[in-house]
């Protein structure tokens, strides 16, 4: 079930658009925040609130990379490995995360602390390699500074 705050938030979002359907993407973000991921219960709730068919909601949720249709770790590492980051060593960082935290691209660390998603350019190419942890940008990453940065995400 959604919290009352979340239901109100979706109603507020709804008012920014001429129809309910257009509020689907932002409503899915609210659902993802509430449930931690877009479980069937989460998107069915969105479908009910907005009056959009469940199959449509599922189709949209699975089309976009940033909607998570499986459970996630407590912190989400979104690491870019596209060309600008790759040529400055992003692949080594993927290996580092695997070795240090046991997290594979697309997976969760055994302790549930981190999920790792490989990104297709996050617009931080001038300070590559770069990642987002939850909503925070971290740039100019090296194998040396990565562990220290991740220290504060428990």
């Amino acid at each position: 079930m959604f919290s009352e705050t979340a239901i109100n938030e979706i109603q507020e979002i709804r008012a920014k658009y001429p129809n309910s359907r257009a509020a689907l993407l932002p409503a899915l973000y609210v659902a993802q925040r509430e449930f931690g991921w877009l479980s069937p219960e989460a998107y069915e709730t969105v479908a009910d609130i907005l009056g959009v068919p469940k199959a449509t909601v599922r189709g949209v949720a699975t089309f976009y990379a940033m909607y998570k249709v499986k459970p996630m770790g407590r912190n989400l590492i979104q690491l870019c490995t596209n060309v600008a980051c790759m040529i400055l060593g992003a692949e080594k960082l993927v290996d580092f995360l695997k070795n240090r935290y046991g997290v594979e691209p697309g997976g969760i660390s055994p302790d549930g602390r981190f999920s790792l998603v490989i990104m297709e350019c996050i617009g931080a190419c001038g300070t590559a390699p770069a990642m987002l942890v939850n909503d925070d940008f971290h740039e100019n990453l090296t194998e040396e500074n990565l562990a220290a940065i991740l220290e504060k995400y428990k």
Partner: protein
Amino acid sequence: MEKILLKNIENPNSADINEYRKAGGYASLEKALGMEPQQIIEEVKKAGLRGRGGAGFPVAMKWTFASGDPKFPKYLLCNADEGEPGTFKDRPILEKNPHLLIEGMVISGHALKAEYGYIYLRGEYPEAKHILNKAIKQAYDANLLGDNILGKGIKFELAVHQGAGAYICGEETALIESLEGDKGQPRIKPPFPVNVGVFSKPTIVNNVETLSNLPYIIEAGGEAYAKIGTPDCPGPKIFCISGHVEKPGVYELPMGTMLCDIIFKHCGGIKGSKKLKAVIPGGISTPVLPADKLECSMDFVNMPKHGSMLGSGAVIVMDETVCMVKVCHRALKFFEHESCGKCTPCREGTGWLRAILERIENGKGTDGDIDLMLAVAGNMIGKTFCPLGDGAASVVQNFIKHFRPEFEDHIREKKCTVTG
């Protein structure tokens, strides 16, 4: 050159409305609200402004099509789905100069008689979302947005719509689908968005940087603006440079600045004592150029004459240690991941090209692979709904065109001959 788009961004409070107004912000809006919509379009025409999203389409022409459509309401959409790999030029405007964009959008809305605007912001910019929402609230509170802006009886409502990690939504009809709450798959044209766009209404989609030029065009006049840059591509351009240069980052320079000057003069040349190998000049979809072909003017008209494109002005610089097969492979992984799946040549072609490049990189390439890739690419170009498929195919064609021996070495030696 005086900074127009990145003005004041060194000020830590540049995103605040009071700082923006102190530096003369929103004076152009007051001036524009005293002008007839058609007069504003005339100024944009005189300015010669071209869209900064990558295609370089003349803005006044797009605006005239939309403005001439009798249907109302009209929508103005700002494309802030900056997803072309290598591109980070709009991010400083969104995060440091949001009121410049808002002012540009209200002016454009008035010119187009569009009463509703959305900023389609990529999901990967959570900080920009927060900053834009705050700036929009400030603008509403100051009566610079709403149904009676500055008491002049003009209405413009603005909201942020956050994307969710789909590169294809930078294509304007996919962006419209996504704003309507659907999968971001391009529509077939015609009808064009200027006639049948979002919610079936006339819709104008312009890039962040494009719209951010409006306050200056109104302030200085179209003719003064047209004196910046080159005669057929006027104005300032934000270039974003990444990779192996001493000083990567964003640079606001006149349109038409030479590519070699961007790299060697503005960015301090190649990092360390390495040699330059190749440059992708306008984001990953634009054709790669080898080190000896960089004497070219970075603008929409001249770059095609040099075998590439200006694209988003995202310059990725690669030194001699970089393997071209690896870069090409990574690029195709990207295109395969981002293909929306709607049309066959792109959905299938990107995957096939990626698979062939993967086996070459893994030492399992065969003699016919290069020609096979060229054949696949040839069957994609011009056969897809939107430019994503063309981009993917042309990346392969151009890497092979300029670096064919490197691909041949990989196949023959069954390993990378650049990095060993």
